[in-house]
């Protein structure tokens, strides 16, 4: 049969061009390839889409597709079905319309590309994104976004929290303990982001509350803040005596720099001190201080404070000098040498010797840095028994005033005489009688008491002058009375070098005698201090390489107890502040 296939092509100007093809065939094949009667060469069409048959009842389209739903008949998505004149067979982008055949033609079809796919270049361009600005968020948006986050997190939030909503830091108590208790640690204080460096260890409890120190915006931290806790800090020099504004009027924070991390905020550097003390006459013409630049190489010899007169409690600072060693006039009689005898010292009444060492008498104080005073009852009385009557060896005298001792003697012998039974050879019979029984006559009592007085006198002479008190104390007669004695008052300085700090607990490695020449000391007046060279054997100045680097403040305080308190200055400053 003859089939007319009319290809319609839409031109650019909208006109339609037609190309007719006459084919002879038994069936009309639809498809992409050139062996089809109806050639549909656009993308989206299969090699063979289907076949149009002529049957008895009319035309029938039979789809061959592979289930691509590529074919519609009169708009219905069916692969096969009868068609008639005017039917539209949609194949991919094409519409094939069945026309009324004319002449010898048995089937007439018009073919038009009605759903064209874009051309290859347009497709490729549509698929592609080739510039970053098409894919990424804009640079400005990113910038503004980041800026907004930073401003909110690091400026607005902290400002609001500190100065705005609620009480903020400003309402915190000025009492540091109360403040620390009031502190809320959640959510974290926003102004922590403003901290320039970690707060020093001792002040860390303040670290959440910036406003405790930074009281007013844009105003440096005031001394009054420091004085809230550190009320008892004293001047380095008396401002009324020395006009040294660099040490009397400087702000606390001129020297004490906070937010420096774990390092102490006290000044440690040697030059801080030596800048004045290397030529101290220049800044304080009337001073008795000597120049010093470094402990290791240029530090005066120690000048201990020693007792000049224990009774009058007068002291003097005397420099250590081998030729003219200072003496501690404590009124004690004592020898370290005898007590530290390596063979030991005889223990009274026990027929044995005891080897003593320093710690038997010198025990560290509760703080561990110094030593507790040596006390007779604790440290001496094991050996120095204070007994006085050979027939009553367990009776001891009190370690106290002369009066206490004489009273004890009188009472002991009076009691013995009146009670009787004393085992004393030269005592009268009434004293030696068997105790108990009859009561004494007046004469007998007087005789007994006369004996008691004499016994007390004799014992007093023994006790005060030789064997007991006189062992350690200087005892003098104060009158002609039988018991008129005086014991010279004892006074020992607590520390020989009160202007320097020394921590014995940190110096436990060397033995005591490495610094203190006690084993050879025969007199209680010996000042058993080492000279500075002993310290310098281990300690050097700030820059020492083979010694322990030690600066001035390793031993010395800057704020000196004996100068006026600095709080006066803070108070005055507050008044001026209004």
């Amino acid at each position, binding site marked *: 049969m003859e089939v007319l296939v009319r290809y319609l092509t839409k031109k650019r100007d909208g006109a339609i061009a037609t190309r007719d093809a006459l084919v002879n065939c038994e069936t009309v094949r639809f498809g*992409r*390839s*050139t*062996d089809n009667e109806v050639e549909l*060469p656009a*993308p*989206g069409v*299969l*090699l063979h889409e289907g076949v149009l048959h002529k049957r008895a009842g009319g035309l029938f389209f039979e789809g061959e597709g*592979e289930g691509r739903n590529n074919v519609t008949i009169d708009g219905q998505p069916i692969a096969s079905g009868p068609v008639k004149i005017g039917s539209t067979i949609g194949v991919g982008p094409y519409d094939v319309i069945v026309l009324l055949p004319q002449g010898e033609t048995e089937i007439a079809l018009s073919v038009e590309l009605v759903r064209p*796919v874009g*051309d*290859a*270049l347009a*497709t*490729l*361009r549509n*698929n*592609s*994104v*080739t*510039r*970053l*600005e098409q*894919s990424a968020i804009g*640079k*400005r948006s*990113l*910038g*503004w*976004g*980041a*800026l907004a*986050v*930073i*401003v909110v997190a*690091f*400026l607005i939030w*902290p400002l609001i929290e500190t100065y705005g909503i609620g009480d903020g830091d400003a309402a915190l108590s000025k009492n540091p303990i109360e403040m620390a208790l009031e502190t809320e640690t959640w959510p974290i204080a926003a*102004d*922590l*982001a*403003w*901290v*320039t*460096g970690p707060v020093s260890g001792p002040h860390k409890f303040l670290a959440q509350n*910036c406003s405790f120190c*930074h009281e007013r*915006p*844009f*105003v*440096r*931290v005031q001394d009054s803040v420091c004085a809230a806790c550190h009320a008892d800090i004293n001047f380095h020099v008396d401002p009324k005596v020395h006009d040294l504004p660099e040490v009397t009027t400087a702000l606390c924070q*001129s*020297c004490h*720099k906070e937010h*420096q*991390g774990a*390092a102490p*905020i006290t000044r440690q550097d040697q030059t801080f001190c030596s800048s004045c003390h290397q030529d101290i006459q220049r800044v304080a013409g009337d001073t008795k201080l000597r120049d010093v630049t470094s402990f290791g190489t240029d530090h005066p010899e120690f000048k201990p404070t020693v007792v000049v007169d224990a009774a009058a409690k007068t002291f003097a600072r005397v420099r250590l000098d081998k030729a003219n060693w200072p003496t501690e006039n404590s009124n004690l009689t004592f020898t370290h040498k005898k007590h530290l005898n390596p063979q030991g010292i005889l223990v009274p009444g026990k027929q044995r010797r005891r080897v003593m060492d320093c710690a038997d008498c010198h025990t560290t104080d509760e703080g561990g840095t110094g030593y507790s005073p040596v006390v007779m009852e604790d440290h001496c009385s094991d050996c120095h028994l204070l007994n006085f009557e050979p027939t009553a060896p367990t009776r001891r005298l009190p370690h106290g005033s002369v009066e206490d001792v004489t009273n004890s003697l009188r009472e002991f012998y009076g009691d013995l005489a009146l009670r009787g039974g004393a085992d004393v050879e030269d005592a009268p019979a009434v004293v030696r009688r068997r105790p108990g029984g009859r009561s004494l006559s007046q004469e007998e009592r007087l005789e007994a008491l006369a004996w008691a007085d004499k016994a007390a006198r004799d014992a007093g002479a023994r006790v005060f002058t030789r064997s007991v008190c006189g062992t350690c104390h200087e005892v003098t007669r104060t009158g002609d009375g039988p018991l008129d004695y005086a014991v010279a008052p004892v006074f020992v300085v607590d520390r020989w070098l009160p202007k320097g700090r020394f921590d014995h607990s940190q110096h436990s490695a060397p033995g005591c005698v490495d610094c203190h020449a006690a084993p050879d000391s025969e007199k209680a007046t010996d000042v058993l201090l080492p000279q500075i060279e002993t310290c310098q054997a281990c300690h050097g100045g700030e820059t020492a390489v083979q010694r322990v680097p030690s600066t001035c403040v390793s031993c010395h305080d800057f704020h000196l107890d004996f100068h006026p308190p600095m709080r006066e200055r803070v108070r005055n400053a507050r008044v001026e502040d209004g």
Partner: protein
Amino acid sequence: MHTSILVFRNFRYLKIALALIAVAVLAYVIHDPLGRPNGGTWLGYSLGGLCAAIIVWLAWFGVRKRRYGVGKLLLEDWASAHVYLGLSLLIIATLHSGFQFGINVHTLAYALMVLVIGSGAFGLFAYMRYPRLRSINRGEGALGDVWALVAGMSRDCYEIARDLPDEVYRLVELADKETRIGGGVWRQLSGHDSNCASTLALEEVRGMAERYSGKDADAARRLVRVLARKVELLTRIRKDIQYKALLDIWLYFHIPLTVALLGALAIHIFTVFLYW
């Protein structure tokens, strides 16, 4: 005659930057502050002020480069100074910090500055490296031509595949419709597309071509040749997109980070005096 901004005016701005660094380092070495060196000493304030001034001036380059013929300095002056003074900040600002860093807005400003400088350094590297690689990659033709060539090849493929089995034709269709160039930021930067429809089609068709015989085999072989050429062109285009993306991407860090830096810097200065 074009001169690189690096050697511009016989390294004038390199010399200025080196002089600034030398003065800063010398002052830092000589200076013996109370406590650890930090931004709060006289030297700290001086170095900080210098850094802030340099940062603001360098940031102003972003405004200045859009104004032509304004001021005494050429745009090359600005660009050259931008590079050298920017790099000098790494040292001067570090000295300003006294090597003290923490989790705070101050170190944030420093970190942003380092990131800005780092992204700028990458930008400088990109400008020195990629334009040359890009023109080598482009070869003779302009890129527009290459796109047209690719599109033409897609059409050729349809033509060649018209009488080939549907399995082949479907691949040709996919290669045409699904081939994309570039895409998201990462795909542009990577310079290749592991799911490229044309490459997949090429591999498949190559396998199918071996099975065909006669007319189909000839057509399939022709198709393979065209697809291979198309894939090669696509690779070149993608490489070009990659170079362009590398030339652009650093600005997506440099500019927003600069804005953030200016904010953090202002807050840094504000807060150190607020909590003086």
